[in-house]
């Protein structure tokens, strides 16, 4: 994994993920308005903003779980194809972690991490299981490999979900509010895994309300409101001196509890 990244980062002058003029409507609601965004190899971008601001939608457009009405999205130089085999192939390169974990309920933890490798990447089962066990060990749930998802705590399930995404050796990882459904005491175990991932050089897009994580792990913070990227800055600059009124208002509401 780390070798792969070292190899890529030397050749990657071009940004890994590029969104140009992306628009999306839900009926009359204009959820994404002319979004332009470039994400470099190895960069950790945190999306924050009030609910309904379009941050989750933006995250989900990057692997086309949400289609867009106009604009282009390219990943590693390849534009996102329409539905079909080609899109499936590209999705395998983009890891996704959901708020509600979405582990396959009828499969064991190990099988959850194996299935994508075997069925999509066509890796031989023994090799896939070896990789899966290493990844489960790395996110600290190695002992749970033979259990079913429902037998695990939320924090454990989310770490399995991260392992499942990593097993595909993705070029970029998307996190859609990965800790929002967790009990408070489990939030840190998941954030710790994500921090480690960021430190290892993974390119990450993270939608979160965890300002501590944004401060400590992000290279860049994007503040979204009403379907637009209102402000983007380094975490330090954003949290100490937000420029827009919208961001000031948002931060004043969440930072004083």
């Amino acid at each position, binding site marked *: 994994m780390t070798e792969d990244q070292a190899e890529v980062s030397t050749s990657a002058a071009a940004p890994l993920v590029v969104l140009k003029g992306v628009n999306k409507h839900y009926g009359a609601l204009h959820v994404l308005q002319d979004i332009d965004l470039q994400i470099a190899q190895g960069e950790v971008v945190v999306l924050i903003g009030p609910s309904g601001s379009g941050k989750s939608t933006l995250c989900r457009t990057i692997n086309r779980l949400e289609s867009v009405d106009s604009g282009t999205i390219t990943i590693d130089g390849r534009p996102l194809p329409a539905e079909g085999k080609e899109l499936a192939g590209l999705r395998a390169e*983009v*890891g*996704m972690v959901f708020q509600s974990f979405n582990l396959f309920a*009828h499969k064991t933890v190990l099988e959850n991490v194996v299935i994508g490798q075997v*069925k999509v990447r066509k890796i031989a089962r023994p090799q896939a299981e070896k990789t899966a066990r290493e990844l489960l060990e790395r996110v600290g749930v190695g002992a749970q490999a033979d259990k079913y998802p429902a037998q695990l705590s939320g924090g454990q399930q989310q770490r399995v979900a991260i392992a*499942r995404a990593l097993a595909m050796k993705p070029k970029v990882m998307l996190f859609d509010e990965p800790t929002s459904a967790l009990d408070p005491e489990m939030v840190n175990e998941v954030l710790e895994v994500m921090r480690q991932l960021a430190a290892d050089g993974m390119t990450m897009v993270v939608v979160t309300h965890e300002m501590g994580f944004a401060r400590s792990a992000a290279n860049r913070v994007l503040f979204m409101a009403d379907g637009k990227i209102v402000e983007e800055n380094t975490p330090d600059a954003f949290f100490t001196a937000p420029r827009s009124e919208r961001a000031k208002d948002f931060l004043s509401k969440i930072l004083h509890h």
Partner: protein
Amino acid sequence: MGFLFEDDNFALFRDGFLQTIELSALSALLALLLGTLLAAFRVSPVPVLRAFGTTWVTLFRNTPLTLLFFAVEFGLPALDVHFSHLTFAVLALGGYTASFVCEVLRSGINTVPLGQAEAARSLGMTFGQTLTLVVLPQAARTVLGPMSSVFIALPRNSAIAGAFSVGELYSAQQTFSERGYSIFSIFFWVACAYLVISATVAALFRFLETRLAVAR
């Protein structure tokens, strides 16, 4: 009641019983395969396939089975398609039951949380893989109850084939009636035979329910 063991009556009854089982089993197989395919069509992203699935269900579920038998037995030969009476019966009964299987499965598919399919797709699985590896196995568990009703109804529906030259239980009953045996004794034995089949199907589904129950 004793007539069953006179003359060659038992052989006729046994042949009818076995024919009912054969007809039911073949129709069930066809219904299961075709019904699953139709359900896949109905949830697929391709509009033509969805329309095909919807049309099939509307047509076959809403047509009386006897009419379907007429259509197959007389319609297909008119189009120069010739099979045995048993094959025709399997086509009619299987096609009819498939529409019910499709709808039961589709309701099961709709109970699987959307996030399961999204997770599968985001791993790079195709539509077919998402359906067969993630959605259908979970849907199957929730539909075992209603599915057992469909497959218990099937052997009883197969009685209609008796009126279309298939030598199954119902036609055995006709022969016995013509031979003048008491109608009550005839129906007693025929009902027993159907009961055995239905109870076996029900037991099979109960076994599947305990077998597929998973900690989740």
